């Protein structure tokens, strides 16, 4: 079957970007990706925008981005599946190319979050729980992951310290990533003694709301082979869902959508979890990364806590996880995050990751979760 290659990547600086509109953020990432791909803009057949519309005053965001990028009259559309909107945009572009409709598609994940206050964001994000039966009790987004954490601790003996160890790792690598929001290491002591958000989760267990954009340019196999840089191939593309409500999940210690999406991606790419050398996983909370180790098969169910305690997800361990800092240190502009993950893995497979380079990386993975696991996208990426 025809392959789809990534020929260009661009990543803006994540953070409180009070200097720019969302389309200006999109342009930063797009400009870098176009230069990276050695393309002229005319060669782009379409764009797909990954973003969550509720955060922006501008209605129908794709239109304003398309105009600002100078891509009219080429088609564009928006994809939305909460925090997985970016990976949904990549999947949509991949489908468009696989189907033969388009040859070259630009995918832009972009989000401005910090124009809203933290309680407003907590309210908005909390409503990714089921509003009819859950949100009426003032549930928040961290509260759901906190409940996963308590259950995980109860069933498997995962510890408070192991949660903090995830934060320590991600800040260690985030300090080495020039586009990260937090470029500072934290100690285990500090990470475990921050303010409560939703027990057992504290401030240092939570990723930060941020503004930012990332862009990848996809092309069909023939075009990709003529790109100036060696393409990175989207060889495994998994995508699955789980119930909106946690009240209808089989258990509360993992994300069934992630397990299913990973199985699809591994099967399509004809690889297994032991083949993955570098991964960007959705660590919106520290417990989410621990569950991801398990859901992706990097370790057995229940062993995620020990996996981080034994430093297995560090460079030089079993598989390097979130060595760009993850959502935790890099920041989480929700629509941009999935695209940012793919950018990082492309960088790693090209050998362009600088001091956080995973040696000899040939096969990488992204794991982008929407909401509290209602949606999950897993990509296996490979360099020939």
């Amino acid at each position, binding site marked *: 079957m025809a392959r789809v290659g990534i020929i260009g990547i661009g990543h803006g600086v994540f953070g409180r970007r009070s200097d720019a509109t969302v389309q200006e953020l999109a342009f930063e990432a797009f400009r870098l990706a176009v230069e990276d791909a050695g393309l002229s803009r005319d060669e782009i057949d379409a764009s797909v925008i990954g973003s969550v519309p509720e955060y922006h005053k501008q209605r129908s965001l794709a239109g304003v981005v398309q105009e600002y990028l100078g891509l009219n009259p080429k088609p564009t559309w928006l994809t939305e599946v909460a925090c997985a909107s970016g990976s949904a945009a990549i999947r949509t572009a991949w489908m468009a190319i696989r189907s033969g409709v388009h040859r070259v598609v630009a995918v832009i994940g972009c989000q401005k979050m910090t124009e809203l206050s933290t309680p407003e964001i*907590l309210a908005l994000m909390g409503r990714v729980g089921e509003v009819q*039966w859950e949100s009426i009790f003032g549930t*928040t987004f961290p*509260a759901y992951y*906190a409940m996963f954490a*308590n259950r995980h601790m109860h069933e498997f003996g995962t510890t408070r310290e192991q949660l903090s160890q995830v934060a320590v790792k991600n800040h260690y690598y985030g300090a080495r990533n020039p586009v990260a929001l937090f470029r500072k290491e934290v100690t285990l002591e500090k990470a475990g003694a921050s303010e409560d958000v939703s027990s057992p989760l504290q401030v240092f267990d939570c990723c930060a709301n941020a503004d930012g954009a990332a862009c990848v340019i996809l092309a069909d196999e023939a075009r990709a082979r003529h790109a100036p840089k060696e393409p990175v191939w989207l060889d495994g593309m998994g995508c699955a869902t789980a119930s909106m409500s946690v*009240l209808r999940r089989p258990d*509360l210690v993992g994300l069934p959508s992630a397990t299913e999406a990973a199985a699809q991606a591994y099967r399509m790419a004809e690889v297994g979890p032991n083949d993955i050398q570098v991964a960007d996983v959705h660590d919106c909370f520290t417990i989410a990364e621990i569950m991801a180790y398990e859901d992706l098969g990097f370790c057995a169910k229940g062993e995620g806590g020990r996996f981080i305690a034994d430093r297995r997800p560090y460079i030089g361990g079993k598989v390097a996880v979130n060595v760009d800092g993850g959502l935790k240190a890099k920041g989480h502009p929700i629509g941009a995050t999935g695209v940012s993950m793919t950018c990082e893995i492309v960088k790693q497979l090209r050998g362009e990751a600088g001091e956080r380079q995973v040696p000899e990386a040939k096969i990488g993975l992204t794991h982008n979760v929407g909401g509290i696991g209602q949606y999950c996208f897993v990509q296996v990426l490979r360099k020939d």
Partner: protein
Amino acid sequence: MFRWFGAVNFSPYTKVGDFAQHLRDGRLMASRCSRCGATSFPPRADCAACMSGEFEFVPLSGRASLQTYTKITAAPTGFEKLAPYVVGVADLEEGGRLLAWIGETIAEKEIAIGMKLQVVPRLFEELEEIKVYYTLERPGTSWSVVER
């Protein structure tokens, strides 16, 4: 009158709206499919198993056990004054799950996953308009002994 359900209600109109009247009268109800008999909590009008749109309400005992919980310190808009509060997910004895606040009959230090619970229908007494909800309480707590 589903708008009665919750201090802040986000979905006032639903085919299972009578749930709130039952709750006001002290009954916790599940839905049961009139065709295949599948029951659901939370209630749903349309059967997930056989796709029938015919259902009836059936009462639940409210007996449950604690699946998981969290104490929310950082509250969303509309709930700031209530914070901190503890929410729990309870596995209902007759099947299904429910999310609610853990009520005043259970001290915070007593909260433990797996503990037995009673779901108790409640009214916000201090509000003039009818606002109903339920809490997770110590087994044996009846809806008439908590402030109603």
